């Protein structure tokens, strides 16, 4: 066990995987000499050399397209996209190619690329360094989508992603890259996909969150506890595959659900979760499902603190939910 920040845990996870498997390599903009703009790949070039840590030209199309070719050929590329906001030049390669290679080839060509990318707001990044568009990837059949909220999960889920046989979108909540730290197991300790993490047990309302919204949800639960409301907090962390059973079970217990994410509400991930719960736990629901999310506007700069869900908004929604049903 070592105490690490979230971004350090990512770094250790990469190094661990690269040490164990010579086929693992890292590529992206500024990942080599510079060690990544957030230092997630710091030290890797020195340890593993230019053949395994590739500083690429400024082209996300090229990064993902070549990573796909490498994966088809039998390597395990881990591509870094500097910010999720800049992934769109690679969108065609991701949704048309990466997600569909195994399928379209009838299983002949697996394509296990991992795409790591920092996402989310709260760092005064404005419109283009803050977005949360995980729903695009979740809606794309053939991609797995995971989002850690603790250092241990960052390393453990990343190790799982790298040994997975399928493409994985690995979204890192940059807002808590350094603000969150915790004990991380040494070595190749993996966290399985498809299992939600119970952050806090509760009986009155279920709060679902992921990424940087997990600490926000926990803070809200503290507030609620002081008021005598017992909130269960669940870190979804694996959006695809989703731990539907855990979500349903929690709502069957509490009868109320609050879904929290930074992304815009309309057609966001929360819509799917709400739809699922309305389908599978309708008769348990004592109150309408609340979604506490970013608004349906682009991401602002000066006012990001008003745009982003905070603990007060989450607690308020939970309170209303408890009162109304």
């Amino acid at each position, binding site marked *: 066990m070592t105490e690490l920040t979230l971004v350090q845990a990512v770094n250790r996870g990469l190094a661990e995987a690269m040490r164990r498997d010579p086929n693992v390599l890292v590529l992206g903009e500024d990942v080599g000499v510079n060690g990544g703009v957030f230092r997630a790949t710091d030290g890797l070039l020195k340890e593993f050399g230019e053949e395994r840590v590739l500083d690429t030209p400024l082209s996300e199309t090229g990064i993902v*397209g*070549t990573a796909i*070719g490498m994966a088809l*050929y039998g390597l395990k590329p881990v591509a870094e996209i500097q910010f999720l906001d800049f992934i769109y030049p690679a969108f065609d390669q991701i949704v048309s190619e990466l997600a569909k290679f*195994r399928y379209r*080839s009838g299983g002949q060509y697996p394509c296990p690329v991992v795409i790591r990318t920092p996402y989310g707001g709260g760092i005064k990044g404005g419109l283009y360094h803050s977005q949360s568009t995980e729903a695009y990837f979740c809606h794309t059949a053939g991609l797995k989508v995971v989002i850690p909220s603790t250092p241990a999960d960052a390393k453990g889920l990343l190790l799982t992603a790298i040994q997975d046989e399928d493409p994985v979108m690995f979204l890192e909540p940059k807002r808590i890259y350094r603000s969150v730290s915790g004990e991380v197991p040494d070595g190749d300790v993996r966290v399985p996909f498809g299992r939600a993490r119970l952050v806090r047990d509760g009986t009155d309302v279920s709060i679902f969150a992921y990424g940087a919204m997990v600490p926000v949800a926990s803070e809200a639960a503290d507030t609620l506890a002081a008021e005598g409301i017992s909130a269960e907090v669940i870190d979804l962390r694996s959006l695809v595959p989703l731990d539907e059973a855990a979500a349903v079970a929690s709502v069957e217990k509490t009868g109320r659900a609050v879904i929290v994410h930074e992304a815009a509400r309309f057609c966001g991930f929360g819509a799917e979760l709400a739809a699922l719960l309305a389908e599978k736990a309708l008769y348990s629901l004592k109150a309408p499902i609340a979604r506490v999310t970013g608004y349906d506007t682009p991401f602002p700069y000066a006012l990001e603190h008003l745009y982003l869900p905070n603990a007060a908004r989450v607690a308020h929604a939970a309170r209303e939910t408890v009162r109304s049903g």
Partner: protein
Amino acid sequence: MNSGASSTGTRSPPSAPAVSLTPAELLESYKTMVLSRATDERCLTLQRQGRIGFYVPASGQEAAQVGCARALSGDDWIFPAYREIGVALARGVSLERLFDQFIGNSGDLSKGRQMPNHYGFREQRFVTASSPIGTQITQAVGAAIAARRKRDPIVTVTFFGDGATSSNDFHAGLNFAGVYRAPTIFFCQNNQWAISLPREKQTRSATLAEKAHAYGFDGVVVDGTDLEAVYGAVATARARALAGQGPTLIEAQVYRFGPHSTSDDPHRYRTDAEVAHWKETDPVQRLKQRLSAAGQLDEPRDQMLWEAARGEVSRALEAAERRPPVEPASFFDDVFARPTPRLEAERAEFDALVQQGVVKP
């Protein structure tokens, strides 16, 4: 610049092809080209009869495809567009497997997931095609870098059309290949049209080959109706790539005799005179004349070859038509290596619908 029609490189001009094709190889190549042409002709009919749903013809491009494939080793990886039937045949893909794919039956290695012509054969290192234009180009570069990393002495070859030179992946792929000196051959079949857009309106450069200079390597224009010329250009590029001298862009000038696809009506945008002009250098005819002049082929022999080819096509088609369809629920397979709980639930939902007679496979 404005370099002419043969080679646009001055950096280190490709040396003459190391080897050329033997007479026996020429005849083999001819047979493959005839088989490709015969398949094409049959498939256009089959599509009209509704026996296959769609088809993309390659007639006019056989020398480019077969000539290129012939210059490669069986271990080299192919990243095709969707028009490379000649390459598939030259790599030894069986006609029956191709027809299985055109029909999308249970013999189709891709399990009926894609339109005709979007096939792939792992055994022949022929990567499964997709429709979006250009995407295979960056992938071929990545595979080449991977092969070098694994110390495999192979090249990757990616096929694309004149239209694809405008794609994002052309730019990224050639740039990455230049930067990393990837052992990749960019094989552009300039068939003069991208559906209805003529080559001159696709881009203003004099040749497509010279675009390579923007990425720091050489481009070569080759007469794509001349099997041996294509062979030579590819053999040279391959040797250079393996020697660590980096990638080459080859522009093979050809012509698309038929429509873009069976959904296309070329009369809307091009003249019969243009087609007739290019038919004068029909690559199959050219090679036939070459072989005849060398005394390796005469009319009766040629007739026999054609009949054999047509017979082979018929047999493959019939075998494929006899093969059972894909399993109804098989479209749930291969989304991931192992199905997620959600996919399992959806498949169960589907099975129940079938059981209840709601959905009729």
